[in-house]
């Protein structure tokens, strides 16, 4: 029923927005947890986000999500209104985070086109219980008000000072269109006014209790009357500084009118004061400013479907090829075309600029991926009872969108490893003379055509002996232990079936280990390496290409077919001339280059391509260094180096999973070249 009139694009937008919202929410919660308490701004933020999710989920007829958000909203409404003294913030964070997890799981279901029907009742019960508990410990909203007069007036003496002459003013605030939640913003104004005025009234009165007032304020403005000792100019400035203010009407009133209007407005000052008493002014301000910053940043951005960008990139790729076809058209050969060449140069300049721009559009900062790690570190440090600090460095480094999608999981794995295996327990750390709190640093760096991501911990470091023992036990040693360098030993952890933790914990050691990380990274053309100093920590370095979409490739021929091999895979290319050919007893050919032996894979045999170059002396060898398993490819000839746009193979062919072919690309003349996947030759 629901899916009848909710179309996919609406749902897509909903999922996208909600994901963004809960990401913000998660950050707010984690941020608050660091400081140990929820600032008023954070509480407002949670409240606001839950409110938004509630509304949009209800619209999408996702009742369970709407219900959950509603309950959360209730909880934070209570906290915001009563400012309870005794709040178990840790439990509160857990509650919100489990809510976030639930929403995330449901959104995933929606993305996979499954019904989002997760059972929310446990969570609801937990929230209700928590709220009841809070109420029991802190008293209900109304009781809270009664206790308030006992508190000193916030903000110091001004309010109490019987300052000279009192004057009355009335201001009508109109908010900018689309700033949303006018009632909440109006409430912020009232709150800030508290310390400046002797008395005040405002219309509509029930801005907090009644969300409908937002619509009223949108229409008619928000009217505030104040009685104050401060000069008119200062009051006017105050109102003018209100965020998102579109228009202000400000006028002086005489005392009688003020009193009359005040009694007209349903709410008096006491209640407002009660509700706002504990809000720190600064917190409120910084929260509002942050919201404003987000809003202005948002106006300069649009979100675009990645499929459109892919399409755009395809088109630009085609345009580059079309340009080459025009400029290098055989019909033009031998003609003197000065004007044409000049125009062609101009065209080339523009196309390459467009190409660069399209590439840059696809670049996304790593920040979001990095921030996600904060959650993992938090959860783990709680569960494992380790104090861990996650430090992010240069998280605004940009990487191609496709790559980001592929590194999230490996990164999560590395972070888990660092916290679980890398860092010692607090006692061990103290005994070793280190700070009790362990540090995990997540750093990104741009190096030429690559991005390096480093996961560094200051833990115990890798234990060489243990690695060797484990490797021996699992029979994955490639050569005698005595001959291995430190680096080689460390690299062992990336082999399949390796896990150094003695204890299997919830977070790591489930059999999938670093080999999966290495595999995942290879998929996007990246690699991982490790360095460690015993007792001082471990650094894992991920090396990623800036973009997967364009690679530097070497074009080669075998028979009539043309192939492209990524330059990054090539060590060097040699002719047979000075090198030695060896044959083993099974007739397998090997090439000896500077004392190293490379098995020969004849590409024409591997792919069964008819060619005239079958004599090893006539062709050329490409030495490929793949994961310490070097080999060489025998091909007919090299055509030259070129930047190529990587295209996926058509679905039908992808489904056949051809070993050794990773994709295809279009060459300058419009013909297709297949891109070799070197990992396919050794597997």
């Amino acid at each position, binding site marked *: 029923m629901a899916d009848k009139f909710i179309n996919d694009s609406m749902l897509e937008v909903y999922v996208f927005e909600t994901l963004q919202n809960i990401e913000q929410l998660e950050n707010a919660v984690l941020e608050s947890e660091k400081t140990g308490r929820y600032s008023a701004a954070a509480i407002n933020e949670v409240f606001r986000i839950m409110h938004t999710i509630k509304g949009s989920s209800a619209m999408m007829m996702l009742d369970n999500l709407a219900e959950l958000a509603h309950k959360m909203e209730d909880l934070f409404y209570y906290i915001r209104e009563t400012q309870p003294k005794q709040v178990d913030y840790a439990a509160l964070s857990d509650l919100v985070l489990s809510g976030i997890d639930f929403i995330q799981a449901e959104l995933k279901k929606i993305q996979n086109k499954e019904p989002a029907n997760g059972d929310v009742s446990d969570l609801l019960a937990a929230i209700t219980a928590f709220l009841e508990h809070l109420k029991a410990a802190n008293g209900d909203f109304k009781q809270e008000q009664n206790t308030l007069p006992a508190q000193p007036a916030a903000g110091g003496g001004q309010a109490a000072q019987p300052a000279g002459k009192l004057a009355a003013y009335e201001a009508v605030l109109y908010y900018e269109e689309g700033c949303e939640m006018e009632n909440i913003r109006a409430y912020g104004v009232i709150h800030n006014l508290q310390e400046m005025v002797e008395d005040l009234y405002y219309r509509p009165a029930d801005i907090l209790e009644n969300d409908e007032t937002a619509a009223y304020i949108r229409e008619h403005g928000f009217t505030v009357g104040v009685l104050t000792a401060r000069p008119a100019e200062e009051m006017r400035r105050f109102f003018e500084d209100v965020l998102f203010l579109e228009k202000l009407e400000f006028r002086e009133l005489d005392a009688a009118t003020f009193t009359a209007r005040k009694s007209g407005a349903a709410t008096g000052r006491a209640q407002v004061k009660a509700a706002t008493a504990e809000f720190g002014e600064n917190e409120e301000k910084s929260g509002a400013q942050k919201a404003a910053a987000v809003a202005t940043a948002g106006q300069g951005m649009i979100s675009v479907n990645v499929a459109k960008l892919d399409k755009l990139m395809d088109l630009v790729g085609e345009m580059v090829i079309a340009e080459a076809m025009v400029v290098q058209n055989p019909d033009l050969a031998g003609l003197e075309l000065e004007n044409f060449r000049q125009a062609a140069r101009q065209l080339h300049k523009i196309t390459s600029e467009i190409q660069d721009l399209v590439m840059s559009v696809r670049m996304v900062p790593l920040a979001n991926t990095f921030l996600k790690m904060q959650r993992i570190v938090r959860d783990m440090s709680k569960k494992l009872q380790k104090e861990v600090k996650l430090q992010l460095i240069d998280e605004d480094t940009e990487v191609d969108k496709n790559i980001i999608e592929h590194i999230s999981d490996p990164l999560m794995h590395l972070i888990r490893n660092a916290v679980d295996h890398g860092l010692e327990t607090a006692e061990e750390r103290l005994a070793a003379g280190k700070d009790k709190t362990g540090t995990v640093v997540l750093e990104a760096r741009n190096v030429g055509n690559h991005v390096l991501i480093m996961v560094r911990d200051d833990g115990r470091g890798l234990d060489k002996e243990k690695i060797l023992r484990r490797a021996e036990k699992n029979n994955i040693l490639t050569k005698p232990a005595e001959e291995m360098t430190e680096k080689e030993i460390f690299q062992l952890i990336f082999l399949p079936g390796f896990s150094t933790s003695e204890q299997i914990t919830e977070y790591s050691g489930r059999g999938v280990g670093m080999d999966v990380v290495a595999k995942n990274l290879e998929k996007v053309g990246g690699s991982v390496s490790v360095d460690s100093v015993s007792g001082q920590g471990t650094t894992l370095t991920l090396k990623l290409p800036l973009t997967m979409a364009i690679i530097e490739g070497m074009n080669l021929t075998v028979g009539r077919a043309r192939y492209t091999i990524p330059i990054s895979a090539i060590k060097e290319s040699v002719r047979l001339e000075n090198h030695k050919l060896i044959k083993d007893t099974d007739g397998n050919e090997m090439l000896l280059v500077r004392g190293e032996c490379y098995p020969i894979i004849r590409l024409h045999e591997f792919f069964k391509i008819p060619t005239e170059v079958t004599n090893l002396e006539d062709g050329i060898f490409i030495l490929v260094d793949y994961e310490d398993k070097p080999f060489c490819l025998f091909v007919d000839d090299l055509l030259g180096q070129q930047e190529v746009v990587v295209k996926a193979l058509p679905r039908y062919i992808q489904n056949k999973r*051809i070993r050794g072919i990773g994709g295809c690309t279009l060459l300058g003349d*419009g013909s297709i070249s297949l891109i070799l996947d070197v990992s396919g030759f050794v597997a």
Partner: protein
Amino acid sequence: MVEYVGFQGYEEEEDTLRGKYLTFLIGSDSYGIELRYVTEIIGIQPVTEVPELPDYIRGVINQRGRIIPIMDVRLRFRKPFREYDDRTCVIIVEMSGITMGLVVDSVADVLSIPDENIVEPPEIQKNYNRYVLGIASAGDDVKLILDCNKILTDDEVEQLSQL
């Protein structure tokens, strides 16, 4: 047709494709495929061979930046290979997410064949008429209506039958 607007018009378009078949020739045999799967008909283009594929997949072509695999229908039906010439056509079909170019000797016509003129193929033995969805009589001609889906995806059966 002018009175059809919006959604209605869309449905109408779907309807106009139903019951229409693109007919093509292989040798002297006439075949038909449902028109709604056909996106384009182009002449034969330079083909890039892809290794390790069945012989009936000739390779891939570049159709305005799209890389499309092409299948020689002759070879698919285990008929002898015939050199491509001016009349050779590639019918680009798209179904269940897979795009494929079908190489045929020549394209004949688009025909409307009412359902009642199509009969199911006789089931004499297993693997017989695997790709034939129905036999249609149009005028004094007989066309074999092909099952696109099977042509595109029916590899496993093929492999089994070759054992």
